[in-house]
């Protein structure tokens, strides 16, 4: 059996001994772990004493009362987050207020138990927090082993995949129950909305395929001399119907061939994603310009637009998976939230750099710079 250290910080001896008693013979087991887990309770009566104990032997979990005689629980929480961010903290407090809850979550408390609590309530909280502790430990271990399992990614992904299914299911049920009357014409809006959700789910799946291709590194990359101008032109042709529909003028400013050693699928992904974003997040009578240039040491791709732009504080979030910057201008744009994180992965693969310049309301410019150190170095990177 694996034993987890839990530090209980409370000035009431009764609470401390109560928790010790409840957890003494309590064990939990999870399907993903072979061993059962037991608990070893360490007690502290004040925040100061708790900090001493944490410095000496860092426990896995801290149950922390907020109302303490000396320093407050929230201060102990702050100390833990600054010095021992691995420790999971659960606040126990009778001074339960949502404000404290929100404040404590913001500075890193994992969960709360309101006082008074029943043994069962405490046990189920401990079970949850322990599960989190072990899942996190497993995730780290997998990361260390280089396995590409990412729980958080999968969680968000399942949410993103379920949302459109729920929406379409909702519309189908409304039609099945003839909620809007007998005439099929009354349901056209439902059908259009369902089709739009299905289309966006399809896009998400296509993007996921791109992402897994890049991630797995298994796909055969064929590095050969390709003409980037040709790739850009084909991406622009693909995007032209959407651009016409949105009243956006698309133009490729480079006419002469720009030759670089690269995989043509990778380059297609870059141009397709950047140009389609530039078209989607644009304005009526807007424009998108694409250019490519080559010097002795680098190749530069530039896609600029006259679109809605990006707030400075949103720029660091752009390349994270499933980030879709939400604002009134972008709310009607559909996207998987994966496009730019895919672009970033390709860019990293080639040892290239991506820069974003943007002015809200005026437009954005994405610049990708590939170093040209000679073909040997490039081959090493891929």
């Amino acid at each position, binding site marked *: 059996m694996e034993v987890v250290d839990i530090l209980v910080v409370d000035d009431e001896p009764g609470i401390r001994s109560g928790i010790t008693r409840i957890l003494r013979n309590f064990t939990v087991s999870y399907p993903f772990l072979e061993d059962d887990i037991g608990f070893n309770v360490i007690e502290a009566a004040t925040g100061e004493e708790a900090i001493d104990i944490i410095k000496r032997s860092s426990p896995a979990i801290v149950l922390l009362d907020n109302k303490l005689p000396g320093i407050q629980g929230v201060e102990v929480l702050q100390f833990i987050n600054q010095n021992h961010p691995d420790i999971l903290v659960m606040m126990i407090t009778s001074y339960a207020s949502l404000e404290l809850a929100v404040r404590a*979550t913001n500075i890193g408390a994992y*969960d709360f138990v309101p006082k008074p*609590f029943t043994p069962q309530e405490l046990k189920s909280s401990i079970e*949850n927090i322990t599960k989190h502790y072990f899942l996190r430990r497993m995730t780290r271990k997998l990361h260390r082993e280089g396995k590409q399992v990412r729980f958080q990614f999968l969680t968000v992904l399942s949410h993103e995949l379920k949302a459109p299914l729920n929406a379409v299911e*909702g519309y189908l049920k409304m039609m099945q129950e003839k909620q809007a009357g007998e005439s099929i014409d009354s349901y056209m809006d439902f059908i259009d909305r369902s089709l739009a959700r299905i289309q966006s789910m399809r896009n998400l799946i296509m993007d996921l395929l791109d992402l897994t291709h890049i991630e797995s590194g298994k796909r055969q990359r064929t590095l050969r001399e390709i003409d980037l101008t040709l790739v850009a032109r084909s991406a622009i042709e693909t995007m032209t119907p959407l651009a016409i529909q949105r009243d956006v003028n698309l133009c490729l400013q480079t006419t002469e061939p720009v030759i670089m050693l690269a995989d043509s699928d990778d380059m297609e992904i870059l141009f397709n994603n950047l140009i389609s974003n530039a078209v989607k997040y644009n304005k009526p009578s807007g424009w998108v310009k694409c250019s490519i240039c080559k010097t002795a040491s680098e190749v530069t791709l530039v896609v600029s637009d006259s679109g809605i732009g990006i707030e400075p504080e949103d720029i660091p979030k752009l390349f994270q998976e499933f980030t879709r910057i939400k604002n009134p201008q972008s709310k009607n744009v559909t996207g998987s939230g994966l496009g730019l994180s895919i672009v970033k992965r390709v860019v990293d693969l080639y040892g290239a750099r991506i820069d974003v310049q943007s002015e809200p309301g005026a437009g954005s410019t994405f610049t990708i710079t590939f170093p040209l150190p000679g073909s040997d170095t490039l081959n090493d990177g891929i």
Partner: protein
Amino acid sequence: MASSRKTILIVDDDTDYLFQLKFHVEKMGFDVVTAESQREAENILKNIKPDLAILDLMMENEDSGFILSYKLKRMYPDVPVIIATAVSAETGMSFGISSEQERQWIKADLYLEKGIRPDQLHREILKLLKV
């Protein structure tokens, strides 16, 4: 009905969920006001006191629904709040309302899983409105 129509505020960032819920709730005979974010809802609440609110939990942030519920209760303590969520079916790793003590902690009048049948929802609304 003789009494004047009741107004229900629905807040959800999924426009289709919002559309469907609005459709169902209007069919029940209520007036509906909708918002797609915590921020938009807060602006509406400055001008309108709904008779009941149905809030999504995860919007701009994963606890937007809680915060909105808290703010709404501070402005209008007598307005019942339903928090609709799809999170409890997920991993349980995030700030959720999966356990009983969390339900006690966060002051909403009712938690509902998304995907509840309209007639069940109707019953819950009537119960909360005490009609």
